[in-house]
């Protein structure tokens, strides 16, 4: 785990309102695994904000986001050269096993975030990678893809399969999924053994506050930031995990 005051180096739009931000963070770039996240300290919001690492490019890490609230709006307003406090890598990422075989990466919306790293790790293990990505409409689909086959899905049918990414996906030896918790609950129905990356509120990101409770089928809670954010799909008590996180209070006003 490293704590860096890291400069933003570049930004690019990859879908309607969806932007990739590059951050110069050598220590994190060198050690992060797919499914892990960074906790970013932004001027004007009190707590840090968690973001999956999207890609690594030399000494830079990338995160992908949309403006959904104060912190994300701020991050998107920052310019190259501006500094962001970057804590990571955090959490336990995907476990791809020994390889080879086939892996299906199923993502909805911003759930695309951990997938490029996962594709890279899978390829390094000699796995065949199928990339399944869904969104509301074709403009919302992340334009950057990876893998040997790409399957698109849109709710409105404007591109690819008309329906969800979960419904559009083939089976495979290994399923990795990320997206709204509601989508992950659906993935759990179809693939109990899928590895899914969940979203919760986070206080610390480092395992000390117990704020990121994930309810488990076996009873009790564990920590999305420490044991998670990646879980075996059937282990999570989806009914007890808030499917839609309510809008957070803003810290600045």
């Amino acid at each position, binding site marked *: *785990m*490293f*704590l860096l005051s890291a400069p933003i180096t570049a930004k690019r739009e990859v879908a309607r309102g969806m932007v990739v931000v590059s951050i110069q963070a050598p220590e994190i770039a060198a050690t992060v695994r797919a499914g892990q996240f960074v906790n970013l*300290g932004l001027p004007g*919001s*009190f*707590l*840090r904000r968690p973001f999956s690492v999207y890609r690594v490019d030399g000494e830079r890490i990338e995160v992908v986001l949309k403006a959904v609230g104060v912190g994300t709006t701020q991050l998107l307003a920052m310019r190259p050269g501006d500094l962001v*406090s970057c*804590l990571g890598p955090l959490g336990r990422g995907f476990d791809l096993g020994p390889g080879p075989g086939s892996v299906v990466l199923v993502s909805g919306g911003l759930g695309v975030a951990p997938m490029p790293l996962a594709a890279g790790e899978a390829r390094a293990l000699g796995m065949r990678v199928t990339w399944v990505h869904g969104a509301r409409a074709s403009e919302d689909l992340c334009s950057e893809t990876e893998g040997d086959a790409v399957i698109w899905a849109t709710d409105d049918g404007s591109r690819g399969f008309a329906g969800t990414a979960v419904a559009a996906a083939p089976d495979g030896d290994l399923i990795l999924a990320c997206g709204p918790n509601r989508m992950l609950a659906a993935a759990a129905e179809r693939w109990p053994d899928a590895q899914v990356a969940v979203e*919760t*509120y*986070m*206080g*610390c*990101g*480092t*395992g*000390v*506050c*117990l*704020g*990121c*409770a*994930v*309810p488990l089928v076996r*009873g*009790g*809670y564990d920590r999305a930031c*420490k044991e998670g954010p990646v879980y075996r799909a059937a282990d999570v008590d989806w009914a*007890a*995990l*808030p499917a*839609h*996180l*309510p*809008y*957070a*209070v*803003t*810290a*600045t*006003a």
Partner: protein
Amino acid sequence: MTVDMGLTVGGVELRGPVLAASGTFGYGTEVPLLERRALGGMVSKGIFLQPRAGTPPPRIVETPSGMLNAIGLQGPGADALIRDYAPQWASWDFPVLVNINGESVSEYGELAARLDGVPGVAGFEINISCPNVEQGGLYFGNDPRAAAAVTDEVRKRTRLPVWVKLTPMVTDIAVIARAVESAGADALCAVNTFVGMSIDLHAYRPRLSFRTGGLSGPAIRPLALHLAHQAARAVGIPVIGVGGVMRAEDALEFLVAGCAAVQVGTATFVNPCAIAEIHDGIAAHLESRRLGSLADLPRYLPRDEPVTGLSQPNTSTGP
């Protein structure tokens, strides 16, 4: 000139005046970044005799300059603590106090007895101020008789130092402070979180599943400082200040206001190195003012100036 930062507070030998607050540092094993040299001591996450699952999510919500939490004292219980954590603590060079909780006076006592003498446990912080459990906690914290009864019971069941963590949710903190001092507390920690609420405008109901939560962070600092100061004026035992300390300047405000030491909680979430930076900043302040040790720091604990902002007349004059 090097500044002497060591001190003994309420029977516990601390390496410095900055401790990690209960519930914000886990069991001390989670945060690898912190420079341990700077940790005066730590208080472990609040524990009950038995394991507890805690409250369902959402458990936290951000607020202006702070956060609400309702963790519900999730914890593994005394046996697991003794098995999994105390042995590690025994090898560390700073003291670990255990934050103890109960639903009844006797349960507090039993827990203290169970942990008494366990290597690695340097003392107790009695939590009579947790706002996030349906039974116990806060209820013991705002009634001087109940607060004294818990303190007295724990005092009888252990030879270790006993600190008592006060709730801010009272009309007059001095009354509670004096009650637990009389019952044998070695030190007071002021304060725990303030009860707050936040409403989700989509569901038209509280954001937290427990509905209410405890407010922490810099938002509460001026309030916590005032309460710690009032407690320090009311009792002869040391007071450890807690609430919204983010920087060395904040910690120094508590020390000047009469506290013997401070605890740092939420700051660690925002900056995992906060405790080390605060420790170093205090040392730098002392050095810049040519003060050789913490004991030389001027305190604002006037015996002659009137206490203002009091809830009740004539109850909070110094001892």
